């Protein structure tokens, strides 16, 4: 994922703090996920494993592994609903 060119070269201390807060909130939400979702999510997003490999480790199909990752995303998103994500980070 290309991140160096996101326009954060000089984010300023306030944006930096906001970003760290968001990161910690996501980390906390990940830690609260049910085991399979947490595993699928971390293996996919933090370790870049493909769904086949994740399925083998979780003893489920690749499709189920993918479904776990998406469920995880939805749950984390819900957990963050009450707190604002830093919009400044978004670039499409």
């Amino acid at each position, binding site marked *: 994922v290309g991140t160096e060119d996101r326009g954060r070269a000089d984010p300023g201390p306030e944006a930096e703090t906001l970003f760290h807060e968001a990161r910690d909130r*996501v980390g906390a939400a*990940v830690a609260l996920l049910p085991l399979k979702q947490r595993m699928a999510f971390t293996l996919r997003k933090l370790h870049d494993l493909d769904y086949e490999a994740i399925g083998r*480790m979780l003893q489920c199909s690749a499709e189920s592994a993918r479904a776990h990752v998406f469920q995880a*995303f939805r749950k984390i998103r819900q957990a963050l609903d009450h707190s604002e*994500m830093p919009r400044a980070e978004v670039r499409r």
Partner: protein
Amino acid sequence: MKQVPQVCREIQEDLVATAVQETGGRARARVQDHVARCAPCRGEFDRYRALDETVGALKREPTPAAEMAARAELQVRLADLRSRLLTYGVFDSPLGRILIGRTEQGVSLVRFLGRGGAPRLPGLEAVADGKEIGRLYRELMDYLQGRRTRLEWPLDLRLARSDFHRMVLELTARIPYGAVTSYANVARALGRPAAVRAVAQALRANPVPIVIPCHRVVGADGDLTGYAGKRIGLKQRLLAVEGVQTVSKPADFRVRREAMYIRDRDEAEYCLPTCGALSRRSLAGLTLFTSRECAESCGLRPCTTCRPDLHPLPR
């Protein structure tokens, strides 16, 4: 509740997948086209995208939560590796060289060596460790020499070839020491009376012979019919250890059913071999027992007609 337009509901999954960079191509183009026109979905997309970027930051600088997740991942990986490891030993036995293998979950392989190549172990890594397997070997020797009638080992049946095979093996494991039944009777008990050949195939592929006593299953005519390839003598010797008498035939043996007590199908009683028409019946629905104790250990009562309790068979 606010009504979400159909088009937004339909695109939801692709929207999330695109925002978190889990899809490409047409879905992505469709999503980008949609969010350009739909403000609520654009908001949703932005939130997921921001979330994904924050996750990217987690990846680069792990927080305690991410480290916890990573540790959990490592544990699953290790458990997975351990369960794929097969420890084995090769030993001499009265039946020839024998290999015993176990995984973390239980004994998964017993193999008569001598003929044929090395066993195929799909998905398992084999490590020789005679010391670890030594205890199993000593128990097996006790069994083969009649000093022990059960091998109460945890089993790992992952080497069975299908769920049907596993079902056949689990049913066969319940045939007690000193009893004999037929492939047809196992098929009947499984509720698949026509699957006699499939039962025979499953027992032929038994990954843990002796422990799962496929030697106690014979043809409907009482012929031993097959064991470990063509080593019918092994089957005869294993049955002899349990007190099952056989008569020798050209290239086979036959169970001496006239020397055994009989249970008809799922009856709650056991009979003398001469009771009623039993002696003329094939073994297709019958189970044989070497002794009254053996039959009664299965919860059976003596038949009230032929009274095996009053007229026991000569030992």
